[in-house]
């Protein structure tokens, strides 16, 4: 394992590599089968720049997420996109790094309101497959100068370059949080309720559904008085969707941390899948899941977590529905196959960024 302690040393390690490299941050998200010698970014740690008044943060890629969250909390700020911590779900140990968050575009329940990791990411530095250090984007939140390689690198699983530095737009902290829980809805009714709430002006920041407990959860955040007001409005709007209860403060926060990290499927036996579709297609997808599959819905129904019997072909459940399914654990290919013309573009990009084909060989496509 190589753990370079500077960007220059990392670039040298890539340039001098004789075979495939497996890029690792904290090693807490072992998604897919990468081969080769481990190249760790853990040696590149620390905050480069943090300007609370400008809502911007630039950090080295190996910085632990916990360090970043603590620094932001001190100024009553936060990352906008609720990065998921995969440790409970995947049964891994170690310290999640911000580079790993960006490489997997890890985004939590707030995705529906504040966007994904890629939407808050404003700059990257990375080392390409030949060892060149490349910069794209920067430290300002509005920037259309040249192509947006920032977004391309987000969610590219280390296959196009090794991230060394990442910059974010951050947001003010949240004064109050509350959750409206609807009990006893089936998937179809739950998606209806979530769509109705998300189509309201009451700024729902998360919407999930858990068939195993029959709970549908809707989160409100903001200033105390505003949350109280919107809770009353939301209850009135969803009158008729069954029995309601409310969670406030820590009870609400804990629920959404657990939802973000999918802890309800921690230790579950079987293959693990994540499906992305438009919310109104969720009931149809669920109907076609194999017997014995367990599931939960996030993003208002747009993201479905599934624990399925070993070897079940979950992509078949999608039928002709637009979207994709990632197999986080199981024998199926990890990443969803792309249509031929899109796959040709992806392959072309990879060949340009990593002509020797050494970065995380085996991941993506």
């Amino acid at each position, binding site marked *: 394992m190589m753990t370079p302690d500077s960007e220059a040393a990392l670039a040298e390690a890539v340039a001098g590599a004789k075979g495939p490299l497996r890029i690792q941050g904290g090693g807490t998200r072992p998604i897919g089968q990468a081969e080769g010698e481990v190249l760790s970014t853990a040696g590149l740690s620390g905050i480069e720049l943090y*300007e609370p*008044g*400008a*809502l*911007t943060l630039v950090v080295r890629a190996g910085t632990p997420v916990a360090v970043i969250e603590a620094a932001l909390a001190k100024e*009553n700020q936060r990352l906008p996109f609720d990065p998921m911590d995969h440790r409970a779900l995947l049964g891994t140990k170690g310290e999640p790094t911000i580079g790993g968050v960006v490489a997997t*575009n890890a985004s939590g329940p707030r*995705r529906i309101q504040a*966007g*994904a990791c890629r*939407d808050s990411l404003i700059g990257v530095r990375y080392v390409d497959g030949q060892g*060149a*250090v*490349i*910069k*794209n984007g920067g*430290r*300002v*939140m*509005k*920037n*259309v*100068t*040249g*192509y*947006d*390689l920032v*977004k*391309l690198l*987000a*969610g*590219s699983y280390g296959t*196009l370059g090794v991230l060394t530095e990442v910059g974010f737009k951050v947001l*003010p902290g949240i*004064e109050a949080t509350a959750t409206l829980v609807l009990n006893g809805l089936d998937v179809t009714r739950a998606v209806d309720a979530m769509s109705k709430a*998300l*189509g309201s002006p009451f700024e729902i920041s998360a919407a999930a559904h858990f068939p195993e407990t029959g709970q549908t959860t809707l989160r409100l955040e*903001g*200033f105390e*008085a*505003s949350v109280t*007001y919107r809770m009353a409005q939301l209850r009135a709007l969803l009158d008729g969707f069954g029995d309601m209860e409310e969670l406030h403060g820590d009870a609400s926060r804990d629920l959404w941390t657990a939802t973000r990290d999918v802890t309800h499927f921690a230790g579950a036996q079987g293959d693990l899948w994540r499906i*992305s579709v*438009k*919310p*109104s297609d969720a009931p149809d997808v669920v109907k076609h899941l194999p017997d014995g599959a367990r599931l939960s819905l996030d*993003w208002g129904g*747009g993201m479905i977590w599934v624990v399925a019997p070993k070897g079940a072909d979950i992509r078949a459940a999608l039928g002709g529905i*637009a*979207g*994709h399914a*990632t197999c986080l654990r199981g024998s199926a290919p990890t990443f969803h196959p792309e249509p031929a*013309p*899109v*796959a040709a*573009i992806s392959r*072309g*990009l990879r060949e*340009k960024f990593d002509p020797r084909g050494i970065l995380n060989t085996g991941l993506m*496509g």
Partner: protein
Amino acid sequence: MEMPAPDVKIMAKKAKLVERLQSVLPLDAVIHDEFETRAYECDALTAYKCPPLCAVLPSSTQEVSAVLKICHEEGVPVVPRGSGTSLAGGALPTADSVILGVAKLNDVIETSYEDRYIKVQTGRTNLSVTGAVEENDFFYAPDPSSQLACAIAGNIAMNSGGAHCLKYGVTTNNLLGVTMVQMDGTVVEIGGAHLDSGGYDLLGLICGSEGQMGVVTEATLRILRKPEGARPVLMGFDDNEVAGACVADIIKAGVLPVAIEFMDRPVIRATEAFAGAGYPDCEALLIVEVEGSPGEIDEQLSKILEIARRHNPVELRESTSAEESAKIWLGRKSAFGAMGQINDYMCLDGTIPVSELPYVLKRIGELSKQYGLDVGNVFHAGDGNMHPLILFDANKEGDLELCEAMGADILRLCVEVGGCLTGEHGVGIEKRDLMFDQFKPEDMEAQMKVKDVFDPKWLLNPAKVFPLSVTETRRAG
């Protein structure tokens, strides 16, 4: 601004090319008469003009594909055009190029309030997207100043922003999927109505690529429910630095306004003379707008006003009615028109870290004296996206060149303090040669490799974004 010399071999086969294009399009969709092609000689950067070889106006993705296939086979450059409102020369043709206009592609294909998206053809104007959903109280968030005229195709090409992106983001944050035709005619579908990509984020790559990767014919856009209400407050300060500190304090306090607009004294005076919005005569003026229910607006505004008072404002005006709100916005919305009354102007678009605001304004003032050209500043203060307006006289020999030189100095200043050349207008031809100031050669090379993948022959809008000297061998290939 230099453009590549037209290829005489291409010019010589105009008749054959027009004939081939007419074989796949209705006759009136191929514009080749020398008088008529002049309608496409420039966009909103009117200082530069050149009629194209011809212009085509296809009505479907299939027609776009057929046109591109022909141009690809003939080796003819293609310049995609939305509504031609680019301030950066993004749609400026060369004499050997075909303008591909998407103006006839303006249908709404599908709307879903349940899943909160609208799918449109990309010739549709920005404002008419909101127009298609507002009877159900929804809207499309990105709102560039040109939203009445600009097309979604151009918004995607330039990753357009607007006054409200502090809260809602820019085009790339509101784009869910596209149908795009590549230069060889291949049609690709990227993204859809779902929220994330299963593979590489090609959508994020295409958005903001200035029409160099493909022609986007259809787009799936996120729509949002309108807030219950919105209300602005106006604040005047006798010091730019204090106004800048006030912006930072508002942001730090945990209030996230939907817009924070900044105007300096030259712009305040010009708009007063032009629109009479009743602005105070002061050094710096802020318009801060918040959204929500009446109670939520009151709460946010009271926090904002309390912060503003700590900075000794010379004026604080809270709107109490729709008319007062309109009056507060009146001056800001007529700022460009007001400056245009005084003289010709060039509008810059650099972004800076907001902490550098006082220094940058001071330096711009010094440059103004040095060059002898007046400058007004009006911009989105929350995100640091500046819009310095340099006044010049287009009829005066050498004034345009002087203005461009001063503009380049201001943009270099933006880069020097940690910002960038363009926040929402795009590079086009206008900032092409300044790319050296922001990027190292290898940074540009990494970007150009992406174009190599999408358009190996470099036929799509080839003379834009990158300095001509670094693209020369690629364009020749």
